[in-house]
């Protein structure tokens, strides 16, 4: 299956290991990501103000690119746009839902974008990689597992962007299970814990690091206390706040014990027996290699 793929800026810079592990793992289950030949920033953070139309230009322009891909034969009748980054997924989805509901906004946007070959018509659907996996069936993952992760207890961290608001969320915002099903299909054990959809502090990490340190400490400590060896996420911003910020947590709370935080696709690539260049654990701030070796999982 060939599907239009939107990477987003972070996956091309600090989260390359997220992208590479996803693309290669997807091939194993028969999905080919076809990157948009031209794309721009998703718009990061959906604009909520009724009169703020300009900030919807970025997401909608990316949707026009999907129509162009169909026109140019790069994909065949495939108007779903696949995302990996939770923030991009959320921003694109919310903009798409907004213009579907408010055709006046769409008219204004199309009129402004008169240089584009195609007007946007609201026909693109934004989806997350986890949704495609669910649609294909988790048994497809199970069948491709070459390396057992059965010794690994994984805490799925959803954060906010995959679940909220409800009309864009990929699962029940209060009691999501999609990550748990994914982890089980990888042969690992999902951990039940309280903080799986607690906010990581998001962009406060830029100018109010202290709040992120407090939230991170709560989230990570809960994961450890619930028996997790490792945490998975699909959001580069959550990953930064929960992984890189552990050094700041440690500085404030010396008794804090580190726990690796990785992208779900890295463990997918690991279970599929892909090489260490593809799993890309060197890209994580807290490298999980030592932990995985202690669980008899070869990298």
């Amino acid at each position, binding site marked *: 299956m060939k599907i239009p793929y939107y990477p987003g*800026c972070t996956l*091309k*810079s600090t989260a390359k290991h997220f992208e590479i592990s996803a693309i290669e793992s997807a091939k194993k289950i028969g999905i080919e990501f076809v990157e948009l030949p*031209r*794309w*721009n*920033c998703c*718009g990061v953070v959906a604009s909520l103000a009724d009169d703020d139309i*300009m*900030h919807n*230009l*970025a997401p909608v*322009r990316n949707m026009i690119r999907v129509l162009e891909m169909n026109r140019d034969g790069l994909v065949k009748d495939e108007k779903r746009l696949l995302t990996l980054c939770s923030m991009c997924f959320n921003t694109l989805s919310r903009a798409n839902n907004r213009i579907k509901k408010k055709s006046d906004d769409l008219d204004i946007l199309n009129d*402004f*974008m008169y*240089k584009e070959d195609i007007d946007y018509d609201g026909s693109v659907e934004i989806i997350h990689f986890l949704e495609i996996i669910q649609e294909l069936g988790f048994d497809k993952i199970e069948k491709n597992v070459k390396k057992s992760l059965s010794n690994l207890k994984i805490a799925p961290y959803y954060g906010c962007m995959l679940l909220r608001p409800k009309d864009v969320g990929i699962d029940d915002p209060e009691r999501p299970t999609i990550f748990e099903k994914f982890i089980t299909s990888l042969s690992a054990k999902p951990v039940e814990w309280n903080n799986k959809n607690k906010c990581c502090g998001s962009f406060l990490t830029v100018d109010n690091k202290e709040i992120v340190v407090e939230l991170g400490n709560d989230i990570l400590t809960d994961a450890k206390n619930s028996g997790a060896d490792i945490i998975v996420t699909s959001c580069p911003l959550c990953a930064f706040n929960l992984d890189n910020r552990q050094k700041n947590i440690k500085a404030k709370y010396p008794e804090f014990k580190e726990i690796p935080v990785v992208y779900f696709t890295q463990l997918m690539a690991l279970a599929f027996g892909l090489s260490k260049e593809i799993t890309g654990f060197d890209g994580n701030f807290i490298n999980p290699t030592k932990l995985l070796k202690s669980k008899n999982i070869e990298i």
Partner: protein
Amino acid sequence: MSNKQEMVKVFIMGEAHEVPAGSTIIMAFEYAGYQLKKGVGCREGFCGACATVYREKGNYKLQGGLACQTVVSDGMSLVQIPFVPAEKPVYDMDKITPDINTIKELFPTVFRCVSCNTCTKACPQDIQVMDYIQALKQGNIAKAADLSFDCIRCGLCALRCPAEIVQYNAGTLARRLYGKYLAKKSPELKNRVEEINDGKYKKEIQEMKEMDRTKLSEKYYTREIKLK
């Protein structure tokens, strides 16, 4: 049959003037009596000094262009931009790296781009300006250098940008970074620089310095380009 020159009416900064049809905007300014000391350069579309803003009769759009390349039309409204006082950060090429961190530090406004594409609409060189700003946002220096290659730094993009980005200076940085750190090194270039430093072409360069414009021009247009 009359040999009378056909004239068109243009409005220079709101003032009506009759100028010969077929004039470029620069010629129209000069015909109307303006002496341009700034906002004019090579007059051949290369240097980017003559950014201009105009509006055609009956069209609400303010358009940008190069005054030496844009021909006037009847009823056109004109103004010449003498200089764009945009911010130009100072950096040491030996101390910066070809990655996203350099862009964040020197051009933080790049990350404010809302993808409105107004810069691309303003560009007289038909460059995909928004796309190269987006490439910088992704840390893709090579792509930004490639897409911005034809930039002549006229400044119209920065004048129109609602996010207050100075696109052309950011593009220049991308090309400098690409040239210094990312481009494949050419042994031919190194050899040629050495030959020049050793004085191998001293005689030819001296001859050219003494040539008059006509001869120099003839020599330029009849030159042979040998590619290995």
